[in-house]
Every structure is written in C-alpha cells, then in structure tokens.
C-alpha cells in the first residue's frame, strides 16, 4: 500500500502534464494568446467604427470576430484540462481541448457558409453597395478610405503573431495552437481581399465587393472544415497523429511498441494510442515470452513506455495470452 503523501506526490506529477522546459514554452504560448486577444479587441473596434455597407469589409470583420475563438478556447482549456479526475469524471478533463476545438470549428464552418451564401445572393441580385462621405476630426472624405485604413491596420500584426505561435505549437505538439497560428498567418489575405472589395466599389466595380466577400467566406469555411475533421477524428479516438497532419501517425506509436518489445520477458506487443486533447492515452497488450509477468515486470514495462514521449500520460499495460486480439487490427 502506498502512503498518503506518496499518493499526493503521484497525483501532482500526473496533474502537471509538461516537463519543466515545456512549461516555459506553454507560458510563452499563453502570453502570445493574450497578446492576440488584445490586438483583436483593437482591430475589431477599429473595423466596427469604419464599417460601411461593403460586404467584403463585413466578411473581414466577421473573420476577425471569429479569430477570438481559438485563443479563448486555448486559454480556457489550458485551465480546465489539467484538473484532477473526479468521481464524475474519472478520466479527467483532457478531452475539453477537443470539445473547444470542435466548437470553434463548427462556428467557423457555419459563418463561412453563411457569408458565401449571403454574398452570392448579393452578387446575383446585383445589389450596388452605396458608400458616401464620412467626417473624421473635421476632415470630410469618402468613407471607403477610412474602411481601407482600418483593414490595412489588420494586415500585418496577425501574420507576426501567427509566425510567433508556430514555434510553441510545434514544441507543445498542440493542435489548437497550431490551427490558430495557421489561421493568423493567412489572415492578411482576408484583410487584403477586404481592401480589394472596397477599392472595387470605389472604382465602380460593384461586383468585386461580393466576389471578395465570397473568397473570404470560403476561406473561413475551409478553415472550419479542416478543423472540424481533425476535431471529430480526435473525438472518435482515431490513432494518434502528428499536430499538423491528421493522416501521419505520431512516432510515439511505433516508439511504444519498440520500447515494450525491448523489455525482458516480452514476447509480442500490440499498442493502441488515442489522443485526449494535449495528451495521449496508450493501451499496451503484451504476450509474455516465457514465465508469467509479475506486477513488478508490468510496472517496469509501463515506466519504459512512459519514457518514450512526455505526451504519454495514461499508460495501461495488460498481459494477454495471444495476439492479435480479436477486435483489434494489427498495429
């Protein structure tokens, strides 16, 4: 039996999911996400104040509003995910990451589809968007210039933030952070398309505004679709993949098999690994090579497996008579 203090130390170690070096990277990522939110507040306000009847500008504004979702999802799940398991939630709260991811993806897909449909309708009905004069600090000029100025402000910072977030996303192997960085990086295209739309109105090319809005809507929808597939694949317990490509198997899967096979007394191994948000849950089935495996041997195998990757949070080692198991395809 373990003592109370030993149990406490163990749960604490399990709660802290990251090695110390990674913890610093995480803190950096958290700061970057707060910075993103701060920038978005100024961008959304500036664009709201300049917002006219341009459809492309409206699409770009909605895109910026939706950009709040990934940083918020990241910051919220960052607090929730490492909460200790409770009686009602015996597996802990790691899955909250996938839930946040799913919600953000659905919002993007819905809004993107809506914008494409609304802009296509405007294009078909040949609605000629009016933009008149605006007065700022006593100067009166065409409101389109003010809209272009606001859009220009949102052109560069997201690209810098996106690039800055890529490094921690890679080091933390964090899909939400990566998706966010990826979206930020492409954000200048949204602002540029918005500028093209407003300039189009200025040049009397009324249709260019709707075409630009359709392009923005489609890019929002595509982001949503991409992220929805990843989120659903995680929630469906598909095998663990790398953070930037759903179809590439995470190297830890092969690493676990090799690590277990290298242990004394192990004849054959079968592994299944699923993702629970930021961490992996691994089940390792082992066939003893000779004499039966004792509890001590199983602990030894478990420790060896956990050493493969810091993401291996829950590891269950189960001795079995033969492999492959009936319902499990060979890994």
């Amino acid at each position, binding site marked *: 039996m373990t003592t109370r203090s030993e149990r406490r130390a163990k749960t604490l170690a399990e709660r802290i999911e990251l090695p110390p070096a990674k913890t610093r990277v995480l803190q950096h990522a958290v700061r970057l996400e707060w910075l993103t939110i701060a920038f978005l507040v100024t961008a959304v306000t500036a664009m709201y104040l300049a917002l006219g009847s341009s459809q492309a500008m409206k699409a770009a504004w909605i895109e910026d509003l939706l950009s709040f979702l990934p940083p918020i999802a990241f910051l919220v799940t960052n607090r929730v995910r490492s909460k200790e398991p409770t009686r009602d939630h015996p597996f802990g709260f790691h899955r909250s990451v996938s839930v946040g991811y799913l919600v953000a993806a659905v919002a993007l897909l819905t809004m993107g589809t809506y914008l494409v449909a609304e802009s296509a309708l405007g294009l078909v009905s040949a*609605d000629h968007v009016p933009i*008149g004069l605006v007065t700022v600090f006593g100067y009166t000029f065409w409101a389109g210039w003010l809209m272009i100025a606001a859009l220009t402000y949102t052109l560069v910072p997201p690209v810098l933030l996106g690039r800055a977030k890529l490094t921690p996303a890679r080091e933390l192997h964090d899909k939400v952070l990566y998706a966010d960085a990826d979206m930020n990086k492409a954000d200048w295209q949204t602002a540029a398309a918005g500028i093209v739309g407003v300039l189009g109105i200025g040049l009397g*090319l009324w249709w*260019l505004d709707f075409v*630009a809005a359709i392009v923005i809507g489609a890019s929002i929808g595509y982001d949503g679709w991409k992220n929805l597939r990843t989120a659903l694949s995680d929630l469906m317990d598909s095998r663990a993949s790398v953070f930037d490509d759903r179809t590439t198997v995470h190297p830890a899967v092969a690493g676990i098999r090799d690590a277990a096979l290298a242990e004394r007394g192990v004849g054959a191994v079968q592994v299944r690994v699923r993702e629970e948000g930021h961490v992996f849950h691994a089940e390792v089935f082992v066939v003893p090579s000779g004499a039966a495996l004792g509890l001590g041997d199983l602990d030894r195998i478990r420790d060896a497996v956990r050493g493969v990757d810091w993401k291996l949070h829950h590891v269950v080692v189960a001795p079995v008579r033969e492999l492959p198991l009936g319902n499990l395809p060979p890994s």
Partner: protein
Amino acid sequence: MRPRTFLAVAVAVLVAAPGCAAIPVDPEGTLERASGGVLRVGMSEHEPWTALDDGERSGVEVRLIEEFAAGRDADVEWQDGGEESLIEQLHRGELDVVVGGLTEKTPWVDAAALTRPYVVVTGPDGSPEPHVMAARRGENALLVALERFLLEHEAAVADELDGERP
C-alpha cells in the same frame, strides 16, 4: 480560385483600371451623364420640404436640388409621384434622386442610397428627425457629390427653417 490567385488577379485589375482619377466612380455613370445634361429627380409632396402649387414648385429640398443641378450645369427633370413608386423607379435606374422630406428612419434604406442627414429638426413627438435625400443605389460619385453639396448648405438650411417657424 485560390485566395492568392484571386488577389493577384484583383490587384492587376485595380492597377490596370483606366484613369483612377476620381474615386468613387459611378458604376452607371449617373453624375457624368447629368453634369451638363439632365438630372432626373422624383418628388413626393411633403411641406415644408417639397410643395407643388399650380405647377409652381417650392420648398427647401426643391431649392437645394435646383441649386445642386445649377452647380453641375444640369437641367432638372421633375417627376411627381408617391414615395413608393418613386423609390421603385429610382431602384430601376429611371430616376437619379428622390426627395420628399425623407428621414433617416425611412424603410427604403435597402432600395436607395441615403445621404447623410443634412438637417435635424424636431419631429411632432419631440424626437429628433434627421432629414436625408435618396440617390440611386451604388452611384457613389453622385452620392458623394450630393452629400458634399448638402454639407456646404447645412447652415443655410437650418437658418431658413428657423426663419419659417412662427
């Protein structure tokens, strides 16, 4: 079309756009056609803004439109009618401007391009009533020209209305 391709094409179109002299441009060239030609204006009666008496037109907005047209060397072709039918003609492009004591709260906001309010009076229920004119939707050169003209005459209109009050 990929976003990058779209942007490249769009930028090329904008750069190549002939004579980016004055922005905004009318898609249908209304202001250019009316200048030195005919400005087609729809009017629905609504004193003191517009009035028709034995073929004689008067009212604040009639004077404003005539002065605006004169500044563009244009003759005004008046068309009388109810607000709804005039707005429909405006939307079809059969009229360039519609006047008749319209306010910012007009339900025609999606069918026409409203100017900025050029005067705010107190309505019958004591609430502020910002008055506007309606231009053909999307004809932004015309809209901007009319708004500039109204902006220059804001003070004169306010004085005139004060003088008419008992």
